[in-house]
C-alpha cells in the first residue's frame, strides 16, 4: 500500500475544498435567483439592484411597476432594474452600505430617513432635483417632509399613508348614532354605548380599543394638542397633553379590566386576517390607515363601515392624522446613482404611481390624482385619505432622527400605563428623560436641532 504523506493529504483537502466552494458558488449563481429576473431581457443593459420590502399583493404591485419600467423607459435608457424582495430592508441596507456594497436603490420607511441621512448612509437627492429642475410642487408637501432632514430631501416618498377613524355603521345605527364623533369626549360616550358583555360578564364587544391595532401607542398626545419637540432641542415640551392622552387610555384599560382586556386582545386575530377585531365586529371603532379598506374588502366585504377623521380633544377645523410614507433611497456609494434617480423619477410619476399605489390600493403622493384613479382603485376611500394628507395639523413620521427611540420609549410608557404598572405622569417622565438623553447626544454629535413637530 502506497503510503500517503501529509503533503498529499493537505493538497487533496485543499483541492476538495476549492472544488466544494466553486460548486457551491456555481449553484448559488444558477439556482438561487433573486425574484423577478428575466435573463433574456437584461443583456447589455446597466443593471441596477433595488431592494424592496412588502409581500403578497403589495409586493406584486411594485413588481408590476418595475416590470413596466424595464419594458419601456428602462429599455430606452439601456437600464434594467433588478428587484429583490428583502426582509429587514432597513437593516440590510445599512449594513451593506457600511460594507461598501450597497444596492443602487433601497426601499425604506420614512421614519428611518433622518437617522440614515445623519449617519451618511444616503445620497442626497438635492443635486438631482436641481439638475433636472424636478417639480417638487406636484407632490403633497407632507409626504416630502417625511423624507427631509436638514432641509434636504434624502429620499422620495413612493407610497403614502394617512390614518383615520374607522367605525362600524351598523353598530352606530343600533345605538341611534348617525354621525361619527368629532371630539374625544364624543368618542368615549359612543364607545361606552357600544360595549357589550355576555351573561358571564366577559367582554364580547368593545367600543374602542387603543391597542387595536396598537401600532401607534406613541402618538396619542398629538390628538390632545401635544408636540414631540419644540424645535429647540427639548423633548415633549408640553407634558400635559401627553399625560392627558395616557390618562385617557388608562381610563379605558381600567374600565374594561386589565386582565380582561389582555385576554380579549389575544383572542383577536392578527391584522391581516378574518379575525381582525374590527373586521370581525369585536371592536366598534378603530384607528387605522389607508390600507384598511383593502383588508376589510378581502375578509368581510359585507361589513358596514365608514371612515372619518380621528377626533381630537377639542373639535378642530383641520384633522390630526399621521403622515408617513414608504420611500425609496439611493444609498451612499451606490454604483449607478444617475440611473437610479431616473428610475425614482419614473416611480413617482403619475404612471409609476398609478401602478404602484393603485396596485396597493392606496392614494398617491402627487397632489392631483389622475381622473379615474379613485374609481378604478380597489380602495373606495382613497380620496378621503388623500385629502387628509393636506391637513395642516397632520403630524409627520420622519424628519426627527431619534424618532425610533421616541417611539420605543413612548410605546413602553404606554404599555406600562395600560398594564397598570405606572401612572401616566411617571411613565412619561421616565420616557422623556431617556429620549432627551438620546436627543442631547444626537445634537452634540451631529450639531442639528430638529424642527418643531
Amino acid at each position, binding site marked *: 500500500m502506497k503510503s500517503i504523506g*501529509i503533503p498529499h493529504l*493537505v493538497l487533496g483537502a485543499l483541492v476538495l475544498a476549492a472544488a466544494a466552494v466553486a460548486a457551491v458558488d456555481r449553484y448559488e449563481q444558477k439556482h438561487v435567483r433573486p425574484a423577478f429576473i428575466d435573463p433574456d431581457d437584461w443583456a447589455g443593459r446597466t443593471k441596477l439592484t433595488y431592494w424592496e420590502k412588502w409581500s403578497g399583493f403589495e409586493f406584486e404591485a411594485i413588481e408590476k411597476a418595475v416590470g413596466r419600467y424595464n419594458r419601456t423607459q428602462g429599455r430606452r435608457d439601456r437600464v434594467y432594474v433588478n428587484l429583490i424582495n428583502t426582509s429587514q430592508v432597513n*437593516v440590510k441596507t*445599512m*449594513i451593506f*452600505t*457600511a460594507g461598501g456594497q450597497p444596492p443602487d436603490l433601497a426601499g425604506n420607511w420614512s421614519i428611518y430617513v433622518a*437617522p440614515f441621512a445623519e*449617519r*451618511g*448612509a444616503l445620497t442626497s437627492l438635492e443635486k438631482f432635483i436641481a439638475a433636472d429642475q424636478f417639480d417638487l410642487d406636484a407632490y403633497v408637501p407632507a409626504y416630502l417632509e417625511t423624507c427631509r432632514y436638514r432641509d434636504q430631501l434624502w429620499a422620495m416618498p413612493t407610497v403614502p399613508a394617512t390614518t383615520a377613524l374607522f367605525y362600524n355603521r351598523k353598530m352606530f345605527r343600533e345605538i341611534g348614532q348617525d354621525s361619527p364623533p368629532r371630539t374625544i369626549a364624543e368618542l368615549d360616550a359612543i364607545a361606552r354605548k357600544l360595549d357589550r358583555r355576555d351573561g358571564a360578564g366577559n367582554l364580547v364587544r368593545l367600543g374602542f380599543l387603543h391597542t387595536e391595532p396598537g401600532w401607534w401607542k406613541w402618538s396619542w398626545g398629538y390628538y390632545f394638542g401635544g408636540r414631540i419637540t419644540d424645535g429647540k432641542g427639548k423633548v415633549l415640551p408640553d407634558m400635559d397633553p401627553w399625560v392627558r392622552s395616557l390618562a385617557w387610555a388608562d381610563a379605558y384599560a381600567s374600565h374594561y379590566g386589565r*386582565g*380582561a382586556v*389582555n*385576554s*380579549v*386582545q*389575544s*383572542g383577536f386575530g392578527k391584522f391581516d386576517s378574518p379575525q381582525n377585531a374590527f373586521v370581525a365586529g369585536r371592536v366598534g371603532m378603530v384607528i387605522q390607515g389607508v390600507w384598511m379598506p383593502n383588508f376589510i374588502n378581502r375578509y368581510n366585504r359585507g361589513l358596514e363601515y365608514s371612515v372619518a377623521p380621528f377626533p381630537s380633544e377639542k373639535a378642530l377645523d383641520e384633522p390630526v392624522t399621521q403622515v408617513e410614507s414608504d420611500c425609496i433611497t439611493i444609498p*451612499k456609494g451606490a454604483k449607478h446613482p444617475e440611473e437610479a434617480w431616473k428610475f425614482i423619477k419614473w416611480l413617482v410619476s403619475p404612471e409609476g404611481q398609478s401602478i404602484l399605489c393603485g396596485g396597493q390600493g392606496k392614494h398617491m403622493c402627487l397632489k392631483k390624482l389622475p381622473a379615474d384613479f379613485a374609481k378604478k382603485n380597489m380602495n373606495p376611500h382613497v380620496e378621503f385619505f388623500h385629502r387628509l394628507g393636506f391637513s395642516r395639523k397632520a403630524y409627520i413620521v420622519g424628519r426627527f432622527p431619534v424618532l*425610533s*427611540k421616541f417611539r420605543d420609549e413612548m410605546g*413602553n410608557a404606554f*404599555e*406600562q400605563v395600560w*398594564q397598570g*404598572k405606572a401612572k401616566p405622569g411617571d411613565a412619561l417622565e*421616565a420616557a422623556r428623560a*431617556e429620549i432627551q438623553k438620546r436627543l442631547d447626544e444626537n445634537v452634540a454629535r451631529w450639531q442639528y436641532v430638529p424642527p418643531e413637530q
Partner: protein
Amino acid sequence: MAMGGRQRRRNMVGLLFVSPWICGLGLFILYPFFASILYGFTDYSVLRDPEFVGTDNYAGIAADPIFWQSLKVVLVFAAFSIPLGVVTALSLSIMLDAGKRGVSIYRAIFYLPQLVPTVVVAILWTWLFNAEFGLVNHILRWPLQTFFGARPPGWLASTSWALPALVFMSMWQVGQMTIIYLAKIQDVPQDLYEAAALDGAGFWSKTWNVTLPQISPIILFNVVMAIIGCFQVFTEPYIMTGGGPARATHFLSLYIYKLAFEEYRMGYACAVALVLFLIILGLTMLALRAARGRVYYAGEEA
C-alpha cells in the same frame, strides 16, 4: 540531538494537525472577542470609523434602565428555568430508571421536543399561549374558575406572565438532559448500593444518598452549560414577543442584537456584550464554588 529533532518534528506535525482550528479560533473567535472588547471603548456607528470614547459606554450601561431591565429578565429566567429544568430532568430520569419498562419509548417521547426546530417551537407555543384560543388556557380555564374563581392569565400579552410562559416552555425541552442523567444513573457502581442496602436504606434514601451524589458532576456540568445557554436565548423572545410587553421578555441577547442591528450602536453593543460575558463568568465561578462541597468526584479524572 535525535530527541530534539524528533521533538521538533512532532511539534510541526502537531501544529499542522491543529492548524485549521488555530486559524478558525483566531479568525472567528479570538479576533472578534478582543475586537469586541476594544469596540466597547468606542462609539462605532457602522458608517463612520470607530471613535475612542473611553469608558463612556460603560458609564452609559450603568445608567441605562433598558440594560438593567434586560439583565433582570435574563437572571429571573435563569433563576427559574435552570432549577426547574434540572429537577424535572432528574425526576424523569429517576422515575424512568425505577420504572424499568418502556424506557426507549419514554426516551423518544421526552426527547422529541428537542428535535423540533426552535422557530417551530416559538410559533407553536405562541399559539398555545394565546389567552383566548390557546390550549394552555383551555386546560386551565375550568379549574381556575371553579377552584379559585380566577381568569386564566394573559401569558404573552401580560407583563407579569410573559416571562413565566417562556420558563414553562423551556421545561418542555429537558429530554436531552433526561437521557444523559439516565445513562449516568445506570453507570453508578453496584457496590455502593450494596453498602447502602446493608445499612437498611430504602429506595428514597438510596436515591438521595447514593444516586444523586454519584451523578452530581454531570448535574454541575449541566447547570454550567445551562447558565451559558440562558444568556444566549434569542429566537424564542424574538419571535414570540419581540421583547415585550413593556420589555417583560427583553433578554440581554435581544438587546445586544437590537443595539447592533437596529440602532447601529455597535460600540455600545460590544460593551454590553462584554458585560454579559463577565456576568456569565461570574455566575459560573459561583456555581463551581457552590458545588465544591456538594459535587462528588469518585476519583475520576476531571
